[in-house]
C-alpha cells in the first residue's frame, strides 16, 4: 500500500466503500444462514423493514425466528400484529416457542388507524417488534414510522403485495420475496449503507421440512405423523 494512503487510512480520513456504515453489534441473527450472509449479520436492531411478498409463500415464517429471538431478549415487551389479512392461528405461534400472551393483535377499522396504531406501538417503547399488513405507504408516512421505531427501539415489518407502486421508500431494509421449492427466494431491494446484491434462496428445510416442495428423487418419506383421533 502506498504510504500516503496508509497514513490517511490510519488517520481515519480515508473512506472505503467496503467499510460502509455497518454496525455488526446491533444486528440480530435472522435464524437463516443465507439471509444472515446476505445481510452481513442479520436484521437491523430497530427500524422499518419493507417486505414485498405474495401471501402464503413463507413470508411470516421468514420473520418468526427473529421475532422469537427478540421476544426472548425483551421479556416484558409485546409483539404487535396489526391488521393481518386473515384470522391468526395462535397454535402455530405457540408451537414455534413464542409466548402468545405477549402478542397483541390490533384490528383497526380503517386504513388510517392501521398507521396510527403502528406509530403508537412503535414509539411506546414497550413493543420489540411490530408486524403490519398494509398496502399503500407514502414517503412521509414511512419516515414517520421510521422515526417512531427509532424512538421506541422497535423493529417494524411491513408486509405487502409485490405489485404495488414502486417508489423507493426510506426504509432501513427492503426485501422482495418470491416462492421457491426449498423456502423463499429473496432479493434485497434496499439497504441503508450497503449495495443490493443478486437474489438468493433462503432454505427453510430445517425448520419446516414438510412445507418444502420435494426435490426430484425416488426416495419415499415415511409418514411422520399418524392420524390423531380425539
Amino acid at each position, binding site marked *: 500500500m502506498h504510504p500516503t494512503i496508509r497514513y490517511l487510512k490510519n488517520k481515519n480520513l480515508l473512506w472505503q466503500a467496503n467499510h460502509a456504515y455497518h454496525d455488526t453489534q446491533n444486528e440480530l441473527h435472522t435464524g437463516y444462514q443465507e439471509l444472515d450472509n446476505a445481510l452481513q449479520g442479520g436484521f437491523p436492531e430497530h427500524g422499518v423493514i419493507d417486505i414485498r411478498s*405474495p*401471501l*402464503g*409463500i*413463507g*413470508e*411470516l*415464517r421468514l420473520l418468526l425466528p427473529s421475532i422469537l429471538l427478540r421476544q426472548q431478549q425483551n421479556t*416484558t*415487551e*409485546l409483539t404487535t400484529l396489526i391488521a*393481518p*389479512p*386473515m*384470522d*391468526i*392461528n*395462535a*397454535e*402455530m*405461534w*405457540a*408451537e414455534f416457542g413464542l*409466548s*402468545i*400472551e405477549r*402478542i*397483541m*393483535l*390490533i*384490528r*383497526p*377499522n380503517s386504513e388510517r*388507524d392501521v398507521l*396510527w*396504531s403502528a406509530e*403508537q*406501538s412503535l*414509539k*411506546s*417503547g*414497550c*413493543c420489540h417488534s411490530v408486524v403490519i399488513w398494509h398496502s399503500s405507504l407514502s414517503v412521509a408516512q414511512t419516515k414517520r414510522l421510521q422515526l417512531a421505531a427509532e424512538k*421506541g*427501539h422497535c423493529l417494524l415489518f411491513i408486509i405487502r403485495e409485490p405489485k404495488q407502486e414502486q417508489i423507493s421508500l426510506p426504509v432501513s431494509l427492503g426485501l422482495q420475496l*418470491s*416462492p*421457491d421449492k426449498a423456502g423463499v427466494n429473496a432479493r434485497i431491494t434496499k439497504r441503508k449503507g450497503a449495495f443490493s446484491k443478486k437474489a438468493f434462496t433462503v432454505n427453510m428445510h430445517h425448520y*419446516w421440512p*414438510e*412445507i*418444502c*416442495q*420435494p426435490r426430484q428423487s425416488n426416495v419415499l418419506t415415511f409418514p*411422520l*405423523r399418524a*392420524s*390423531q*383421533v*380425539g
Partner: protein
Amino acid sequence: MTRPPCVMQKLWLYLYFPSLQLDTLLQQSSDTDIHKQAYIIFDEAKNQTCQLNEAAYQAGIRLGMGLGTASMLKADLQVIPYQENITQNRLNSIAQNLYLATSDICFFSHNGLLLRVHNMLNLYGDLVTYWQHIKHILLTQNVHFHYATGHSPLAAKLLAVKAWDRITDSKIHIEQAMSKCTLQHTELSPKSIQKLNRIGIHDVKGLLKLPLADIAKRFEIDIVTYIGRLTAELSHPVNFFHPKPYFNQIIELLFDVQSIQILQKPLLQLLAKLELFLKERDLLTQSLKVYLSQREHNPIKLEVNSQQGEYLAKHWEELLFLKLENISLESPIFAIQLLAPTTYVRRPDKQDLFAGKQGLLSPLQLRSILQAKLGKKAILTPQLANDYRPERTTLLNQTNTKAAADFPLFALRPSFLLTPPQPLQEKVHLASGPERIETGWWDSEFIIRDYFIAYNALGQWYWIFKTPHNKWYLHGVFS
C-alpha cells in the same frame, strides 16, 4: 396520685359559604375582568337572589331581592339559575379536602359545614394551629367563606352566618357576640319571631335572659329546642360525614360551548383536581366517566378506561381527548361532570432500575391508548384452548391473559385460518398428509377431516382438508 379529670370543653367551628355555586362558576376563568361583571344566582322557587358577587353588591343588589329589582339596579346583570346539585357537589368536595385535616365534619345545611373542634385539639395542640391548617385548605378551594366558633353547633352557625369571622374558645367573647345578634339571624320561624317581638324580645340577648322553663310554658317546643341547643343545655345530635373513596365533580360552564377544542380547558381543570384528589390519598383509578350536559339533547356519556391505574392528569388527558375525537356535539354543552367511580390504593411498581432501556409506556398503558381510540373490540390477545378442532384452538381475548397452555400443541399448523373454510377452487399438489382430525362428537360440531399440506402453482402453501363426502376445503395458509 390521680390526675384531675379533664373536663373537655365542647367547641364547634362553623364554616359558612355564602356563594358556592357562583364561586364554582367564576373560578373557571383566571381572567380578572370577570369579577367586574355582576353575577347573581337566582332561586326560581323562592323568587329571590340567593348568591351574588362583589360587583353585584356594589350595584346595590342584596340577598333576597326579586329578579325585577335586581335587574333594574344593574342593566348588564348575569343571572344564573340556582342548582342544588352543584352546591351540594362543591360542598362535598370541600368536605373531602377538609377531611385530610380534621376528622369530624357534618353537613349542617346546604351551604355550611360544621366541624367538631375539641377532640382535634389533642392532635393540633391549640386552636390557632388547628385553624391555620383548616384555613390553608379553605384558601386553596377558591371560595368565599365566613367562620365562627361556638360552644354549641347552633351558636357557631349563628355567628358564622352573621360573618363574625373569629376563632376563640373564650365563652365570654362568644356570648358577647351572640347577644348582639338579632332574632332574624337565628333559625327561628318568622311566626315565632313575631311572637317573641310581641313580648318585647328583639335580640338573642333578651332571648337568653329568659329561663328555659318559663319559655316552655308559653311557647312552642321548637323555640325551646332551639334555645336549648343554642346554649348547649340540650344536646344536639349531629351526623358526621364519611369521605367517599371516589371523585365526583360537576362544573357549570361560564358560557355554552359548541366546540370540542374549547371544552378541553375546563376538562383539564377537572382532571387537575382529580389528580390532586388521588395524589393526596395515594389512590389510582382505572376508569373515568364524563357526562357532558347538552342544552337540548340527552347528556353525552363518555367512559375512559386505563388498564393500568393512573392518577396523573396528563395520562387521562391523552385518553380522554382521543375519546373526544370520536364524538360530535348535537347542541351546546353547559355543564361537565367528572366521575371516578372506583379507586384503589396504589401499589408501587417493582421495576429494576438498571434493566436496560426504560420504555415511555407500559404495555397496559399502550393498550389503554389504543382502546380509547379504536374501541375495546379492536385490541386482542390470543389464547389457546384445548380443542382438536383448529377453528376452536385460538381464542381472542379483549383483556390481557396470562394462562399458558399445558396441553400438547401440534406442529405443522398454518399461520392464518380462513373462517369459515372455503371450498377449494384451484389445482394443488399435496406435499404432506393426511392428518385425520375426528372429534367433537360431544357437541353439535362433529367433524371428520383429513388435512393435507398442499401448494399451488404460484408456490403458496395451503392447509386443505377433505371431508368423508370427498369435498375439499381450504382452511389455512402457511404464510
